[in-house]
């Protein structure tokens, strides 16, 4: 930072006064000089005039008395006056007297001329003219004197101002000294400000500063005490908050934050994440108080199990998740042994709530490396849960991270496709096996990627379900299919998941669209049986609603899941679409033939139409016909197209 140049106040005061005075002096000098010059000149003129006035009567008498020879004698006396350079006396424009000084003779030019009429004594009659040539010498001398005086005045003023400036500087010197001293001032340093004995403003300032210092010192001490007190309080609070931040209040165990903190310090370690299986059910069944009690007891038992293990730190990650952080990496066998032993130990644990005995089981995910240990152990835990294994160690070969990355990429693609209207229906015909004519079309979802490739739902449908985009896709398919078939004389089917049916928003959307496009009597909803229809009441209500509107219902993938004929009866569907896994080997697989035969027989008895899908060759198609399946769908007859065949 540039240091500001010191600007002396005393100098400023003196210079400003000097400047103003100089300006005033100059103005006064110029004006007075002008006035004085005129006045001086006037004085000289008057002097010359007085002389002329004085001598004129004498000359007048001489002229009047005809004693003209005396005139020169008279006017000669005038030349004794050094300022009178020449005198002329004219009578009737005739020169009757003339004298001039030596100076005038030597052609001095600096003069002025006064003319005066000579009047006859005692009358006003003009009898001649007196011409006086008067030197400006006197005037010049006066001006010179005036200039000298002014210069002396200016010089005196300058001298006075110099002394004045020095005096002001001397007066203000103490202020400068005080400021120099105060530069080094700090709260704890007592400075004795000088000049306090002076009986003037400086003395007042010095005394005030000294008093101020005392007050500041007192205030500073008070402030220091307060600060010290506050510092202690802050430290206490910081410790408390730190405890709160890193400690779990329920179990008293270090929490998830402390793991992050600790993992960062560990060079090589390992991690186990312990998840209590179905803990939600304990909470739901026995209540949260019971759940919290079990968590406390469970944590105490874990503490007692690992109390002697110097390098194992127990943590609570979240509600039903605990972690064992190994600050030093144990041998792999020992690490696995600890996990497996813990699983067994937990299985033996019995917790009491009121009079109930509660047993719990745990699933453990392990990471045998400290880098990304939390994420890796978490992935391992999820994989273990998925595979229903009690313990799984994170393995790079699982490629779980890649799967996650791919899933995220598909979510991005899906969002983009929705935004740019690249989700489209493709139509696959379903043939009537008795007439070999198209009975209806199934609308199948497709995604058109950036390169124009048609992407099968196999790649994105599950991801869409996880990322909550599924309902959007359903809406797109319903709207586009309804629009497409609005003016076509074909029946068409659309797949609905149980989730769709349970979603009131989707159901309302379906109702609105089928009525808007007038396709109630031609639309068939295919409900996936393989997903397991758990909430029968809601599904049944949906089917009833749709049937009232004139819609038809098909059960898709029948025979793949826990096919329940009783439920099927209750649902009052119109079609049964036999699961593709049964059809695709129908020509060779005897078991499949028996199951299909049973399904067809069952359907015939209930007066339901059957549909065989995934018919991909001639042999299967013939078998389908042999088994009296009513409709056929598959690549053998036609693969899904952008448009219906006639279009």
């Amino acid at each position, binding site marked *: 930072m540039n240091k500001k140049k010191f600007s002396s106040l005393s100098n400023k005061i003196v210079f400003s006064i000097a400047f103003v005075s100089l300006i005033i002096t100059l103005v006064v000098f110029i004006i007075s000089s002008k006035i004085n010059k005129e006045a001086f000149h006037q004085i000289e003129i008057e002097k010359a005039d007085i002389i002329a006035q004085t001598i004129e*009567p004498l000359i007048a008498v001489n002229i009047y*008395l005809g*004693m003209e020879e005396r005139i020169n004698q008279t006017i000669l006396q005038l030349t004794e006056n050094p300022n009178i350079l020449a005198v002329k006396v004219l009578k009737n424009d005739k020169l009757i007297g003339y004298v001039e000084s030596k100076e005038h003779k030597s052609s001095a030019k600096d003069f002025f001329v006064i003319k005066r009429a000579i009047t006859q004594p*005692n009358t006003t009659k003009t009898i001649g003219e007196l011409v006086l040539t008067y030197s400006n010498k006197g005037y010049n001398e006066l001006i010179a004197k005036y200039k000298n005086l002014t210069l002396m005045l200016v010089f005196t003023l300058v001298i006075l101002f110099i002394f004045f400036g020095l005096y002001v500087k001397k007066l203000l010197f103490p202020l400068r000294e005080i400021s120099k001293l105060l530069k080094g001032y700090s709260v704890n340093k007592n400075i004795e400000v000088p000049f306090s004995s002076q009986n003037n403003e400086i003395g007042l300032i010095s005394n005030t500063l000294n008093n101020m210092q005392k007050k500041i010192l007192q205030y500073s001490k008070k402030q220091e005490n307060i600060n010290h007190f506050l510092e202690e309080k802050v430290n206490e609070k910081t410790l408390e908050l730190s405890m709160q931040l890193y400690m779990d209040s329920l179990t008293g165990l270090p929490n998830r934050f402390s793991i992050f903190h600790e993992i960062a310090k560990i060079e090589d370690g390992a991690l186990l994440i312990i998840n209590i299986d179905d803990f939600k059910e304990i909470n739901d069944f026995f209540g949260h108080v019971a759940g919290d009690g079990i968590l406390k007891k469970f944590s105490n038992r874990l503490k007692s199990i690992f109390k002697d293990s110097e390098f194992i730190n127990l943590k609570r990650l979240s509600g039903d998740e605990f972690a064992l952080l190994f600050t030093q990496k144990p041998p792999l066998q020992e690490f696995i042994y600890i996990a497996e032993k813990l699983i067994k130990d937990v299985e033996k644990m019995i917790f009491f709530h009121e009079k109930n005995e509660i047993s719990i089981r745990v699933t453990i995910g392990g990471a045998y490396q400290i880098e990304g240990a939390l994420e890796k152990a978490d992935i391992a835990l999820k994989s273990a849960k998925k595979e229903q294994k009690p313990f799984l160690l994170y393995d790079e070969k699982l490629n779980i991270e890649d799967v996650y990355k791919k899933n995220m990429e598909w979510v991005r693609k899906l969002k983009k496709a929705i935004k740019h209207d690249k989700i489209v229906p493709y139509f696959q015909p379903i043939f009537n096996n008795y007439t070999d004519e198209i009975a209806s079309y199934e609308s199948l979802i497709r995604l058109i990627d950036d390169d124009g490739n048609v992407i099968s739902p196999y790649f994105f449908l599950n991801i869409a379900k996880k990322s909550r985009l599924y309902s959007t896709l359903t809406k797109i398919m319903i709207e586009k299919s309804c629009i497409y078939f609005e003016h076509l004389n074909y029946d068409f089917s659309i797949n609905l998941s149980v989730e769709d049916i349970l979603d009131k928003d989707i159901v309302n959307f379906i109702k609105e669209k089928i009525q808007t496009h007038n396709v109630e009597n031609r639309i068939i909803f295919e409900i996936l049986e393989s997903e397991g229809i758990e909430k029968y009441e809601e599904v049944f209500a949906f089917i009833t609603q749709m049937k009232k509107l004139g819609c038809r219902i098909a059960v898709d993938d029948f025979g793949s899941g826990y096919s329940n004929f009783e439920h099927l009866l209750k649902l009052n569907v119109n079609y049964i679409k036999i699961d593709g896994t049964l059809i695709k080997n129908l020509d060779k697989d005897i078991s499949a033939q028996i199951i299909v035969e049973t399904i067809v027989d069952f359907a015939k008895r209930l007066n339901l139409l059957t549909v065989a899908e995934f018919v991909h060759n001639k042999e299967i198609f013939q078998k389908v016909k042999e088994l009296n399946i009513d409709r056929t769908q598959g690549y053998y007859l036609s693969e899904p197209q952008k448009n219906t065949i006639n279009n």
Partner: protein
Amino acid sequence: MKRAALLFFILASYAYGYTYNKLLLKAQASIFPKIIMLDKKLYEKLVDGKIVYTIVYEKSDYYTASEIGKFIESNYRHTSTQYAFKINLVEFSEFSSKTDATAIYILNSDTQVQELAKYANKKGIITFAYDINYLKSGFLFSLMLEKSAVIYLNKENLNSNKIDFVDSLYQIVNFIDKNSI
């Protein structure tokens, strides 16, 4: 005309009376009437509104006086003044208190002229004398021709309240008293 007058003066002086310096007579005839005009209280001295220049002479000097009168009259004729000018010739023997005069000019005389001078001063009449010696008798002005014409003024008679000339006159005259003549 001037030449003729000069010739007359020369001849007359040889024939009668006192001898006069003709040049002086002429100078006095030219200047004295003008001095009257320099009196600031002239209006008090007028006779019937006129300036009466009384020349007092001895019988033998009649012609001189007469010529002087003529000379003055001819000179005065060429000058423009606010007052009329009258020449009054009076012999010494005939002069009395009844004689009108604004100014009196005396030529030479054997008689005592002190009384006349005294009377004139008393009356405030301006007095001129041909001869400077008459100033001893109390006459006011006389004129001598030196390097130039010099007017003499008797300072003893200036005390009269009735005599008050322009100041500049006093600057060109030579003041004299009884002792200095």
